[in-house]
């Protein structure tokens, strides 16, 4: 069992999906327990794999599907799954978020899409399978199939809501297909020049063959792959699909997709840059490392400004996702050790804090029937626990210690200073100011007696114009509250124990020579 733990990470949700679709046809109520149990099983398998990776000599676990082991068969004959430290950390985040949202989703699914649980939970579990597989795979074409698994389940999950969601999903389908097909085309160009699809095999071929790095085909392959991945991760200005799709999606769907999908795509970009193409090809043979930091600056500033213009919580959060994607892409492309550490740590922390925010927004929506700013008056007395969880996520996005957001921003700014990439640092600081304004304006709006159109509803001295009934303590249900509070606890825990994570990341980044590496480890 232990040696097949990587397979079980993918198989638990797969079997859970098939079983819940079969048994759910007879009785809808059995879908939620199956969903939670499968997510739990996958999480346990993930923890076992993490222990194996940390204990193994070179911090890597290799698993070959079909038994085509590397000692008797050439590399690339079978499909290889490589779990190194980066992969298993991100996989654990995926599985953890999946477990959290699986528990959370019991009531929202029943209320927003009644009668469709036996469609929701299979799609939900298969989305977790797809995302976990993307993080673990070591084969470029298998990565395409897994991206499509994640994408198709995402389309289904979003469009299951109202007709407005269906209209938003269509745009997502068109853009997502362009992105995935560009990635596929890039892999085709790699194949035509190297003859293999295995990621490590491609890297070895590039290193062994003279003149391949200057070949126009390889340069264009790199451009196409990165362009496809940038579309899928909603990098400005290719982000047009994200706000509408995540805003109008059902609550449980947006809680699953928002923290995970874009971050996993950033992992794919890091994997392509470091493992497939290699550090010297990606950063020195192409123009990207000089062009991208400026695009990142435009992305971060525009996303932050657009978030400022929103009047509704969920839309504001989606623009914050776009800004965070800008941070992480910038961290990769400033070509610096600390930037890369910051980027990887930011993937982990951003997933957790976005989860907090969206879980909280879902609870607020359920209670207040609206997420517009002026519908939220008096929430601090009505739902104090929810607000605590929500604002832990908010302070983490701003970057206040001891939440994890502070430490990831610290590493990113350090990387910008060491690489002397001042534009990126200015963009980081500017957007942090904007986010401070955003969240404190929200706090003010909840505490204020004046509504959006300016009329004063209270009678002064802190009176918000609400009756005693409206400010009575009435929290959300337990299945929704416990995941939110545990997500907030995880955000604080990752912040307090950040050195453990950074040590693991530094072990992973050891074999790659990035400039700015500390001389004393």
């Amino acid at each position, binding site marked *: 069992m232990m040696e097949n733990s990587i397979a079980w990470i993918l198989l638990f949700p797969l079997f859970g999906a*098939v079983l819940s679709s079969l048994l759910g046809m007879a009785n809808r109520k059995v879908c939620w327990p199956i969903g939670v149990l499968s997510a739990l099983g996958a999480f346990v398998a993930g923890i076992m794999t993490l222990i194996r990776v940390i204990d193994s000599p070179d911090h890597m676990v290799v698993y070959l599907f079909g038994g085509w082991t590397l000692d008797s068969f050439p590399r690339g004959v079978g499909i290889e799954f490589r779990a190194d430290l980066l992969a298993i950390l991100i996989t654990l985040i995926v599985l953890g978020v999946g477990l959290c949202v699986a528990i959370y989703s019991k009531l929202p699914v029943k209320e927003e899409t009644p009668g469709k649980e036996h469609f929701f939970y*299979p799609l939900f579990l298969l989305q977790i399978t797809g995302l976990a597989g993307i993080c673990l795979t070591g084969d470029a074409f*298998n990565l395409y199939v897994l991206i499509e*698994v994640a994408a198709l389940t995402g389309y*289904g999950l979003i*469009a299951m809501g109202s007709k407005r969601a269906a209209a938003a999903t269509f745009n997502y389908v068109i853009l997502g297909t362009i992105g995935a097909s560009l990635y596929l085309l890039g892999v085709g160009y790699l194949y*035509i*020049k190297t003859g293999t699809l295995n990621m490590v095999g491609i890297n070895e071929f590039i290193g062994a063959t003279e003149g391949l790095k200057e*070949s126009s085909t390889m340069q264009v392959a790199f451009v196409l792959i990165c362009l496809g991945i940038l579309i899928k991760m909603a990098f400005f200005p290719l982000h047009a699909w994200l706000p509408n799709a995540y805003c109008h999606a059902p609550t449980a769907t947006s809680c699953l997709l928002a923290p995970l999908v874009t971050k996993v795509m950033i992992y794919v970009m890091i994997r392509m840059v470091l493992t497939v193409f290699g550090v010297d090809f990606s950063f020195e043979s192409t123009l990207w490392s000089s062009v991208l930091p400026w695009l990142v600056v435009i992305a971060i500033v525009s996303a932050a400004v657009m978030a400022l213009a929103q009047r509704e919580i969920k839309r504001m959060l989606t623009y914050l996702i776009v800004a965070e994607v800008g941070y992480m892409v910038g961290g990769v492309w400033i070509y610096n050790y600390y930037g890369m550490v910051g980027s990887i740590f930011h993937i982990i922390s951003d997933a957790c804090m976005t989860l907090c925010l969206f879980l909280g927004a879902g609870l607020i929506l359920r209670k207040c029937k609206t997420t517009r700013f002026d519908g939220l008056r008096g929430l601090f007395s009505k739902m104090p626990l929810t607000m605590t969880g929500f604002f832990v996520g908010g302070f983490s996005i701003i970057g206040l210690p001891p939440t994890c957001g502070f430490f990831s921003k610290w590493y990113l700014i350090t990387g910008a200073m060491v690489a002397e990439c001042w534009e990126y640092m200015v963009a980081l600081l500017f957007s942090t100011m904007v986010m401070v304004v955003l969240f404190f304006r929200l706090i003010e709006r909840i505490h204020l007696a004046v509504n959006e159109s300016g009329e004063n509803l209270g009678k002064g001295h802190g009176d918000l114009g609400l009756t005693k009934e409206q400010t009575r303590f009435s929290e959300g249900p337990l299945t929704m509250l416990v995941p939110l509070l545990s997500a907030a606890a995880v955000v604080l825990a990752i912040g307090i124990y950040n050195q453990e994570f950074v040590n693991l990341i530094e072990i992973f980044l050891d074999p790659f020579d990035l400039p700015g590496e500390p001389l004393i480890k």
Partner: protein
Amino acid sequence: MKNASLIPVVLVGFLLFYASIDFPEWGDPQSPASTADVSSHFIAKTGVDTEVPNMVTAVLADYRGFDTMLETVVVFIAGMAVLAILRNFSRKKPVKRGHEVSVEPDLIVTNTVRLVVPVIQIFSFYVLAHGHVSPGGGFQGGVLMGASFILIALSWDLERALTRFSINRCMVVAALGILLYAGIGVLSMALGGEFLDYAELEKVLPVSREMARYHAMLGVEIGVGFTVTAIMFALYANLSSRGRLEGGL
């Protein structure tokens, strides 16, 4: 909008033409893709490893069997998603749109289809099973079988096809297909190999390691065929009737 969209198209076109300069010539037997270790292994050793004459089926179902399982899962997802989006459980009668007409099934068409559908279904079984030796396999056979049900739905009406193969049965068959595929993989894991290592099945089947791969490939293709058949028909039934499963094309 039409003129503005030409800019990214022209840029992408320029990029792709720039890449084509360095391609190997079309059909060059010395190109990297043709002389790679991976392809040479597939061509040279498929007979030795799996005793299957059709290299494409061997690569699809055995060497890269995990990809094929994920592909089957993609088909399943498409069916689930279409049902989730369109399926309408309300009992109200749909309004007849202006451009819809109701037609009686035609005598010639129905009788021809009555004769042809059994032949199509037998042919689909043949394509599935003979995929080891000639072009074919699970996907191709499954699509043919699904097409036979769609033919019934087209010549008579959807309700008659649904009495043969209802939507609930479609979903059960599709799920069973994936269970069969993943079940063979888990069986190989339980017998000591990796997931989808069919050679380990020699411990339960009275054949050699290579023939165990041969037979497991057939089992896996049957699983794929189940899922593809069911989902093809389910997609057609939902799309043509707007989710109501009455009337429609």
